[in-house]
């Protein structure tokens, strides 16, 4: 496990490295539905840089297509 992740000094070096940094992140989240959005928000709040990728032109996934949600009939959006 340990040797699969980048060593700390390498990351620090990259952080200071200017433009190249943009291609380094902590976590890649695949899918911009409610689960992917929640994961991205949590990780970013907890101090990680997240890349969220989504195949569609907007995030929201299936939940964004729903009118209301059960059992409270809250607006899905």
């Amino acid at each position, binding site marked *: 496990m340990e040797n699969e992740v980048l060593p700390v000094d390498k990351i620090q070096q990259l952080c200071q490295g200017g433009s190249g940094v943009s291609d380094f992140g902590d976590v890649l989240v695949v899918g911009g539905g409610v689960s992917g959005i929640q994961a991205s928000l949590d990780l970013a709040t907890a101090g*990680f840089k997240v890349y969220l990728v989504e195949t569609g032109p907007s995030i929201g996934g299936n939940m964004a297509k729903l009118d209301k949600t059960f059992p409270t009939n809250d607006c899905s959006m």
Partner: protein
Amino acid sequence: MKEDKCDICRGVCQADAIDFRQTPKKRDINVGAVILAVGIEPFDPKTKDEYGYGRMENVVTSMDYERLLSSTGPFAGEVLRLSDKKHPKKIAWIQCVGSRRLTEGENSYCSGVCCTYTQKQVILTKGHDADVDCTIFHNDIRAFGKDFERYFQRAEELPGTRFIRSYVAIDRELPESKNVVIKYATNDAGVKEEEFDLVVLSVGLNPPENFRELADKFGIDLNHHGFSRAIHSNPIATNQPGIFVSGAFQGPTDIPESVFTASGAGAQCGELLDYRRGKLANERVYPEERDVSFEEPRIGVFVCHCGANISSVVNVPATVEYALTLPNVVYAQEQLFSCATNSAQQITDLAKEKGLNRIVIAACSPRTLEPLFRDTLREAGLNQYYCDMANIREHCSWVHTKQKEDATRKAKDIVRMSVARTRYLEPLQEFDLPVNPRALVVGGGIAGMTTALSIAEQGHEVELIEKNNDLGGMARRLHTTIEGMEVQPFLKETIRKVYANPLIHVSHNAKITDVSGFLGNFSATVATEGRVKKIEYGAAVLAIGADEYQPSEYLYGENDKVFTHLEIGEEIAAGNEAVTRADSLVMIQCVGCRNEERNYCSRVCCSHAVKNALKLKANKPEMEIYILFRDMRTYGLREDYYRDAAEMGVKFIRFEMDDQPQVEAVKAGGKDILRVSVPDLILGKRLELDADIVSLAAAVVPAAATAEIAGMFKVALSPDEFFKEAHVKLKPVEFAADGVYLCGTAHYPKHIQETINQAYGAAGRVLTLLSQDTVTASGSICEVHEDDCVSCGACITACSYDAIEFKQTDKGRKAWVNPVLCKGDGLCNAKCPTNAIVLKHFTDAELLSQIDAA
């Protein structure tokens, strides 16, 4: 046509969002972990000709129907038939389309959400038009989730609603009316034909279309359905370290599970990457705040169309024009979506350009978007409390859809009132409070231990409180799961990890006697093993579990051949031959719940029964096993085990609430047996089953201490007296009280894997708090004008947060508001006889000017 592009879309897009010059770009990104949150694909009924979908205009899927119901849908919220654009008066829903079927191209599993979303659609349909006749053709009603049973009752009790338990066939479309004829069969009436204006196919959930490609790309194992192959002890993990799965890619699931597995996946990324937390993330920097308190108010008003939500009813340009006539308004304009990123940027830019010092957003309720607009003000270098939202959507366009002129007048009124208030707004300062990085976890079962371990693995100390002598909770009595996980070795290993973790401190035989403090800075007093411990902590997780109902029904406690499912599981594990070698065993479901006293489904018992039945059959295939049920609720992938049990000869007999089974102890053939009689709804007569053993699906009930602990932590309970989460869908592991989280069966009955998922979810949410050095307290809190305070104490009694106390001052004893405890509800304001206590941001001057402008 230029270069094969007609360009029309670019011309009509008001947001200027279309850019033909963009080309795909490939980027290589290096990351430390991956979360696959790829979701589901709704089942496509086109693949099965017999559903008529695509062939008959008035057959739609449930996803299509969601769009028909929605105000942003194709008919702006009117439910219309595709064939003639008329309102359907008779609608049928067909359940289990694509699910619970062994036919080629469909799924054997239960999709778990369709029963309840159909009930939602029925309720919403009736809200649109109470005269619509709604018919639901269903198999079992799987109302297994929290508050689902009541929701089903609500749908079922609506007039003009029929729930019919029957398989159906879509027979034909009538050429003239384009109505659809459905054939179905009931026990009493045999095969019938009926005509419907519209048919909704309640389609199930498929794995994502490209699941094979995904699995190959990431090297993860899938199950035969195409979902991630769950690791029993941790369904968020995959066979590839560092690659996690959240949401419905774990298997068909509802939104709350998608949300807490996302937080759980976040927690597991945090365990892996804690050492680099904060190293790549950039802190947000706001421009310096401009002091405008001595300036004359210069108010900017932004009126939002909200797509068509507001502008289809309210005349937005007229409202803008009107706003410009109001005193102190120096600028006003309309926006398509004020909440869009480009609109926020526009507000920021205009505030600077026009020298605006107060902003009114005429849009929606402040509940959701006020933080966003406050943020916009900060970006503009203004104090964020110089913002007011005029709610012309919920309070106007949504409730006056048919009175457009009056609605426009009302929108103007609301804007005028908001502008009047805004003139008096004051800049307020928020302040940062330090966060104690330590967590308190209450309950040492699987939920509590899993959460504690995940928090500790992310570098935080955890105090784990267990009421018993040993860790393990209810899981100590469980031996296998239906999926075949061996519970005891897992439990032993988890307990070992907890004791081995230097950051986790366990208190045994512990009882919490007092809790005080506030977000990020709590304190609890715990009596444990003869001493009293004071624990300071920043966040708490309540994972106190649930209890097993002690039945008073079916001779339980009187006859030693009557057990609960939990006990039978223990007897099987212990090899008790009276159970494992029995000739005949009857299980009775729904004992102590789904009744008047406990109006909920205990969720786990159907799978529990099937699990025990499969074990017993594996031991002794010739054993006669009967499961007497009301609805079999083996939701999700557990459906496969239900089918296995039926194939192995387990007999399932359905009964109804008003005619329940009866059990009597009799002597037959020289031995003591239990005679179970149950009505057979198909044959229409009473069956008598002679059983050696009877096993009862005893309800899961809230733990005895639930109410007491809820009181101490100031958290709410649901109607069924389990813990009540902040939001059933979007905040499934937090309480409304800040800094307190929940997981496991204390929230609602759930299976071990669901508990593990939720426990990681709670850990993830806790870390979003504990990884911060500080939390921000609101500026909108109460303040006492000491000169006016007469020390009557009325405010102290009114405050539910213990935020006010007496303090000795130069002017004598006066009320004092602890700014970190005050939640700004203003109750104290109403009680104060001398108006000495005021709620900032809602001062008399602000509110009275708003009222006077009405």
